[in-house]
């Protein structure tokens, strides 16, 4: 930040630096130079002093030289003509008997970023590459990269590249690593430095001499080496085995990444490596530096995507420390939810319960959400805790608990009765719009089981004028209509008032439209309305989607030990594009849409060209779930044969053969039986649900129904997909 009176300051410094008395007094002179650097750091423009600083570079005091060089490197590109004056001194220093002076001068000369610099630095760099002192060689090697970056578009100098490849055999470890770095920069356009077998083995043998920074960098370079045979692969891995347990987390993690990549064909080796590294990874999760902790946690999460059981016994390590920052606590809670099993569920829940009263509302809500997710598996225990929290009568807690109830009822219909009882007893109502929507949904959907439901709703209708959120109003409309269907006597009057207000006085167009829709529906008669408004009350099979399945390691290995997991954008680009293309449509609107139109498949006698399916990049559960909810059913069809009798993995393998990926399915014996599958075909993504024994579509209870959704729509591809699917299923049966 420039300070006031900065020009004055520069002038004063200029006077002082050119004062012969000051120049004679070395200490005072140096003090002024220090002052210049201090102002430079603060952001003051002191480039006007360049001339005086060049003079100051001619000194025997190395500390002063360093300061002046720092100044010159910063401003050389602003004052190229003056910088040329300094080059003579620098070139002279490059021939100094003291290697430290030689290295210093060479390094700073290469840091001058101005056009035409190459002709001055080329000769000293080439001389530096053959210097006796390793310090100078280190500097010279990187100097080659700097020289290349000065003129990025010129041809690559073959002799320098060869010289650098030769220097990979240098006795000094830092020179070796610098060579790799320099070659990587210079050969960037050709794909970087080539790691062939001799180089790879040479590097592996030098690993022990390198310091930890160089080790992790070399490990990253080795990622691009592919061993020729399994024997060679195992030789390499056994050489690197000890580095998995390195005291430096960055070395251990870099080694793990290399193991995962090299041993991609040997899952057992990968599992062993993960087991080995779990200790250092866990240690970083408890490191003193909270930033390191965070990085560790993010990577533990990645590993857990494929090996959820790896950290199961260490769940206590992920209990939050009370002084930890919120972002670490969030990560730990996410991990805890994944680690829950029969043995530890009680302890984990007790721990999460104690976070629910945290002073930070965000943290409390996240803890409640975590309990809500565990509730999908262990509903009874969690319901007790959530009900207990309602007694606290704090807005943010109540709202979060009600939202969890909504999700729980949707995923686990068996808990409906208990939830309704609790909601009935809950006197406190949520204050934020998210919570209100959740409560209204519960009231509308299960109004028959909550005796006080109409009265609670009446309260909302009376307070409509002060309600700000249009989403709440829309939810209120839908919920009131549903309530009217099951308890008409109590609801009729207030529904009338609600519709009247929303149609006559409401300014928000969406709310008005929704109200008009409800009104017209009701005009058509109750039965008609019921057909449209009531959808399924729950969808237990969707929880199959939210429960994670083990992913293959290859899915995340490429982003392991990069910034990706930390900044939370490790989605593969493909899915990001798809979700961006999704049309926004709220789930509430979908409820009101008529049931899907049944389309019968046109007989395959018309000449239909062959359609090819492909798997493409894998789809994550979250993406699938989101798309499934957002898209409409394009086609629903009865298959004509009953549920699968074969083992499910046979079915999965059979589908895989024709390039249809199975994402999730319910275990064999359950009714209704469901499976979610997807595939790609000529630019379109097809999602499908196989369903048997659906109580909402009676009559066809024994045969399999397939519902197809697609993005973007391509009827031809759907027809092809269905006929292929039919063929496979017919074969398996």
């Amino acid at each position: 930040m420039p300070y006031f009176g900065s020009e004055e300051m520069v002038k004063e410094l200029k006077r002082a630096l050119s004062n012969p008395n000051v120049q004679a007094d070395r200490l005072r002179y140096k003090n002024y130079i220090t002052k210049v650097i201090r102002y430079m750091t603060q952001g003051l423009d002191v480039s006007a002093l360049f001339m005086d600083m060049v003079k100051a570079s001619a000194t025997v005091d190395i500390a002063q030289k360093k300061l002046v060089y720092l100044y010159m490197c910063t401003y050389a590109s602003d004052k190229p003509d003056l910088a040329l004056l300094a080059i003579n001194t620098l070139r002279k220093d490059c021939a100094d008997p003291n290697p430290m002076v030689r290295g210093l001068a060479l390094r700073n000369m290469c840091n001058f970023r101005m056009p035409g610099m190459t002709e001055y630095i080329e000769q000293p760099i080439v001389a530096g590459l053959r210097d006796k002192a390793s310090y100078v060689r280190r500097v010279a090697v990187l100097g080659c990269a700097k020289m290349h970056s000065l003129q990025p578009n010129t041809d690559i100098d073959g002799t320098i590249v060869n010289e650098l490849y030769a220097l990979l055999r240098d006795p000094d470890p830092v020179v070796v690593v610098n060579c790799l770095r320099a070659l990587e920069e210079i050969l960037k356009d050709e794909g970087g430095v080539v790691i062939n077998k001799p180089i790879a083995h040479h590097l592996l043998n030098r690993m022990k001499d390198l310091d930890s920074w160089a080790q992790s960098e070399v490990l990253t370079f080795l990622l691009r080496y592919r061993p020729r045979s399994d024997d060679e692969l195992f030789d390499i891995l056994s050489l690197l085995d000890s580095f998995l347990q390195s005291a430096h987390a960055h070395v251990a993690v870099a080694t793990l990444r290399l193991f995962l990549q090299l041993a991609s064909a040997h899952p057992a080796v990968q599992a062993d490596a993960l087991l080995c590294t779990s200790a250092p990874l866990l240690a970083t999760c408890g490191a003193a530096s909270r930033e390191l902790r965070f990085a560790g946690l993010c990577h533990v999460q990645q590993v857990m995507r494929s090996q959820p059981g790896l950290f199961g016994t260490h769940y206590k390590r992920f209990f939050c420390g009370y002084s930890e920052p919120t972002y670490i606590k969030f990560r730990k809670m996410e991990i805890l939810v994944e680690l829950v099993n029969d043995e530890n569920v009680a302890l984990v829940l007790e721990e999460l319960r104690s976070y629910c009263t945290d002073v930070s509302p965000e943290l409390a809500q996240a803890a409640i959400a975590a309990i809500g997710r565990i509730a999908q598996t262990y509903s009874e225990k969690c319901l007790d805790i959530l009900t207990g929290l309602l007694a606290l009568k704090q807005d943010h807690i109540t709202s979060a608990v009600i939202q969890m109830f909504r999700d729980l009822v949707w995923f686990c219909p068996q808990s409906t009765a208990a939830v309704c009882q609790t909601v009935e007893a809950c006197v406190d109502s949520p204050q934020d719009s998210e919570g209100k929507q959740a409560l209204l949904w519960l009231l509308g959907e299960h109004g028959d089981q909550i005796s006080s439901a109409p009265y609670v709703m009446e309260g909302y209708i009376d307070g409509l004028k002060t309600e700000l959120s249009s989403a709440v109003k829309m939810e209120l409309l839908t919920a009131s209509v549903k309530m009217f269907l099951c308890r008409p006597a109590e609801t009729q009057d207030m529904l009338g008032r609600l519709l009247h207000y929303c149609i006559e006085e409401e300014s928000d167009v969406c709310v008005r439209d929704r109200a008009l829709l409800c009104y017209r529906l009701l005009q058509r008669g109750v039965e008609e309305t019921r057909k449209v408004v009531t959808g399924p009350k729950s969808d237990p099979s969707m929880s199959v989607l939210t429960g994670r399945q083990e992913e293959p390691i290859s899915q995340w290995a490429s982003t392991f030990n990069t910034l990706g997991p930390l900044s939370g954008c490790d989605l593969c680009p493909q899915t990001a594009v798809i979700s961006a293309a999704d049309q926004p449509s709220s789930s509430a609107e979908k409820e009101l849409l008529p049931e899907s139109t049944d389309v019968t498949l046109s007989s395959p006698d018309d000449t239909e060209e062959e359609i090819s399916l492909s798997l493409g990049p894998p789809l994550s559960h979250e993406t699938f779930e989101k798309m499934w909810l957002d898209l409409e059913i394009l086609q629903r069809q009865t298959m004509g044969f009953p549920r699968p009798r074969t083992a499910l993995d046979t079915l999965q393998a059979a589908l895989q053969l024709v390039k249809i990926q199975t994402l999730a399915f319910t275990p064999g014996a359950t009714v209704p039986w469901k499976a979610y599958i997807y595939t790609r075909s000529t630019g379109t993504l097809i999602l499908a649900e196989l369903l048997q024994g659906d109580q909402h579509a009676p009559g066809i209870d024994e045969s399999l129904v397939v519902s197809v959704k697609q993005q973007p729509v391509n009827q031809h591809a759907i027809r092809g997909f269905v006929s292929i699917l039919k063929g496979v299923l017919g074969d398996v049966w």
Partner: protein
Amino acid sequence: MISQIFILSSKGDHLIYKDYHIIMKHFRGEASKDSINVFYEMVTALSGDQTPVVMVHLCSHKDLHFIHVRQGGLYWVASTKTNPSPFTIIEFLNRLAALTKDYCGSLSEKSVRMNFALIYELLDEMVDFGYIQTTSTDILKNFIQTEAVSSKPFSLFDLSNVGLFGAETQQSKVAPSVAASRPIMSSRGEQSGKNEIFVDVIERLSVVIGSKGVLMKSDIQGEIRIKCFLPTSSEMRIGLNEELSIGKSQQKGYSSAVRVDECRFHQAVKLDEFDTFRILKVCPSQGEQTVMQYQLCDELPCAPPFQLFPSVQKDYYIVTSQLLFFTFSCSTALNVSITVPVPKGSVSMSQELSSPDQTAELQPKNKALLWEIPRFPGGAQLSALFKVDVPGLSSASLLEVGPVSMSFELAKQTCSGLQIRFLRLAPTQTGLSQRWVRYVTHSDSYTIRI
């Protein structure tokens, strides 16, 4: 590859700024000094649940990633345009902070400001063109010319350090607490008498005690750290407890064997005598380094250091009485602070404390009351009675009391029982050298449920 490294004060002042890829003039301004301000705006605008460690600044040609750590109240930031290993960058920044501490004596805004020339010099040698060259003091000391300017002996930093390693003066053979916070490179003149070496055993304890006094989680993260002021390095032998056993599998005898689950060593440590005699051989380089890290989970060899017997009653007020018992008899706990969450909307509090040096205060903003005990002698027992006035008290309000969290320091005490039997320097070492062994246990997180 690192593009820039900078150090900012907590107020956003630029203390150090080093650009390793000074970009040619025509697209300057993209990633030059402005990025410091961009970073500071981003980091101060973050809300609590966002992750500050890695932040992305979307530039027109390539995204700039900021990775930062906070040490000594300062932001240590590296920016990069590539996608490097986060562990490397974070550990490097931590190492930079540690080196700064070694060279400047202490780590604070003031010491960084005073020694900025020295830090520039360090950065110049540590990183070239954005690539890490070396961080070892053995190599660096040959190149560093600037001498450290020590901040005055009396500073706030020293105050906070008082007692950290036992400012107990009853015992004469205790190093003064500020002894270790001085620059490793001293002026050539006053070299004599400063040949000191400190070996610290530092443990961080995280414990969760359940509502019935059951130990639910206990976790010790320990390390042996050497801070060496010897000008030349020679081999040093550190003898640990002979009965130390490592790993869960090893059989435990009848004796009270000291056990750790796993341990990892600095790569320079020679372990040839470790298996039989539990001796670590190391040539310490100047400055601070961690020679051994160990951890012990789920099994404390001793009782947890503090036991709390809380009782909470609902009256017209909420009455909580706390009885705190310090189980270790030979140690002293310092800076003990106990946080008791109280119900939302608590207005006032009255207290009865058992001794005058304790303080307690209600912090309505944090929904907590804070009870502080500056010094807690071993084996003692303290009690406190708090009456908290909560308008609209209901039985559910009691749910909000707890869990109690504590923070403290235990001097001269390790919870794992790991001891240093002896510390021998090679006989070739000339000159008088003083050796200090210090033990300290910090509470990482000590939670007691009610």
